[in-house]
């Protein structure tokens, strides 16, 4: 048993597609487009601005049920539109521009591209929203001091709700990324997100059945809203259950997109 035969490939450099390299490539692609910087900074600005405006105008006893975290992080409602749009751009944008042909020629196994895109989006959106929340919330608490909405960030429940909010909007964005990969058109995917995720549940919930109402609360947009609740509201899913539902939506849309990515012609 001799091993004297030399490999003919020793002269060539070790170029090969690896999952780590695909991730690096997608990371570079994400940050080399202006749309990412614009969408991310606009989302952060909306969260800060809207949170401060809402907190500054709050009067005790104005409404029935108000939650300090949902109040201080009111801006997440806007970010829950802009960040999913970014998710759509990451995948569907490649189809609309034709870039996907270059991408899949470089990575003909295809599916690693989708995982890498989802990972990069998560790595960009979660830290950004978390840090923004951690800055905005204490600021809104200063404005809310002396009202019935005092709840310091140091309270573990508050910290959990704030972190959950960031995680929720991240999962919603990844869900939209999967939607973009499924529909392969920016206009189509944004239309489906607005129509299917934001409008459809409102329409469906008009059906006078308790089962429908319960189901609707686990839809992506509703679940994203419920994640921020500091205390579980009677009749609504708990924040933990809502976050779990959101993650399942995200995993489901990306997994389905992965199956079709492997099967369909580009």
């Amino acid at each position: 048993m001799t091993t004297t035969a030399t490999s003919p490939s020793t002269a060539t450099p070790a170029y090969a597609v690896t999952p780590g390299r695909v991730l690096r490539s997608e990371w570079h692609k994400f940050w080399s487009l202006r749309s990412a910087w614009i969408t991310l900074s606009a989302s952060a600005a909306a969260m800060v601005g809207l949170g401060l405006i809402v907190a500054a105008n709050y009067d005790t006893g104005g409404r029935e049920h108000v939650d300090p975290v949902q109040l201080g992080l009111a801006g997440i409602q806007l970010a829950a539109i802009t960040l999913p749009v970014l998710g759509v751009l990451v995948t569907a944008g490649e189809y609309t521009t034709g870039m996907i042909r270059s991408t899949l020629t470089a990575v003909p196994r295809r599916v690693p591209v989708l995982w890498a895109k989802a990972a990069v989006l998560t790595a960009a959106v979660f830290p950004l929203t978390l840090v923004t929340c951690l800055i905005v919330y204490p600021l809104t608490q200063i404005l809310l001091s002396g009202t019935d909405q005092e709840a310091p960030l140091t309270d573990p429940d508050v910290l959990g709700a704030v972190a959950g909010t960031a995680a929720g909007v991240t999962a919603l964005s990844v869900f939209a990324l999967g939607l973009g990969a499924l529909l392969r058109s920016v206009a189509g995917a944004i239309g489906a997100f607005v129509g299917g995720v934001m409008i459809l549940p409102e329409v469906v919930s008009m059906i006078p059945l308790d089962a429908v109402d319960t189901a609707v609360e686990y839809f992506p947009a509703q679940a994203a809203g419920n994640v921020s609740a500091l205390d579980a509201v009677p009749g609504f899913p708990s924040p933990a259950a809502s976050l779990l539902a959101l993650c399942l939506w995200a995993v489901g849309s990306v997994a389905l997109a992965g199956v079709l990515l492997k099967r369909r012609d580009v």
Partner: protein
Amino acid sequence: MMTIRHLTKRYGDRTVVDDLTFTVRPGTVTGFLGPNGAGKSTTMRMILGLDAPTRGHATVGGRAYADHPAPLTEVGALLEARSVHPGRSAYDHLLALALTHGIPRGRVTHVLELTGLAEVAHRRVKGFSLGMGQRLGIAAALLGDPATVILDEPVNGLDPEGVLWVRTLLRSLAAEGRTVLVSSHLMSEMALTADHLVVIGRGRLLADTTVAAFVREAGAGSVRVVTPEAARLAALLAGPDTEVTPAGAERLDVRGTDARHIGRTAAAHGIPLFELTPQTASLEQAFMDLTRDSVEYSATLETTAVATTVEGARA
């Protein structure tokens, strides 16, 4: 070496590529020719694994494209001009592709210089002309220093200098021992660049031959003669190997002999010549004859109608 065997693609009941079998060899430029809609691009997309064949298979270097651990070093491809995100710079686009393989940044800079894009490397692709877009596509194709190069209509949108550059590039790639497949719908362009020809029409293989053989068969090498004594010269030139076809009152198309012989014959008999032109343009004609039945949108009827109208107007 690229091997295509019984490659077939159907969309519903429309067959775009129909049982295509041919081989592309290293060290030569192979022209992939066919009218618009003949299935050239679809064939190239199937070679690259972007479209799945209905039947048959294509291998490059003995394996399916997707089975290569570093596909960009195996095959470099230029597909439709815009396979690029317009918001990204040329450098960032190429770097994103290079990163998937661990290809160093130096190579990105090198291909940008090679394709003459170094100065615009950090400008967004959005502002690129069609020619610059083609150059970027070629830069991407060369990024992995591949053994096989596939270019879909590379001279589209290039200025004459760019066309010449592509021709020289293709020849030098083949001279380095690479396998080169170039598609075009222009026979004249291929005659200047390619050694070998694969001609398809409506997805079917029409010819798999060398350029030299195609030119010979096409009968290029006919000579156009214009003389006031056409009938007399025709009689003098006529022979068992020479075919003389009158084309108008003073014009003859002569096949089977060369301009030198015709000129000498005319001089020996004191026949004045107004024109003596060896024909090469008939190559395009031969290509059109070959593919006539498979042109997707034929304009023959309209052309004839217009010609008749013009003739009528003249009369």
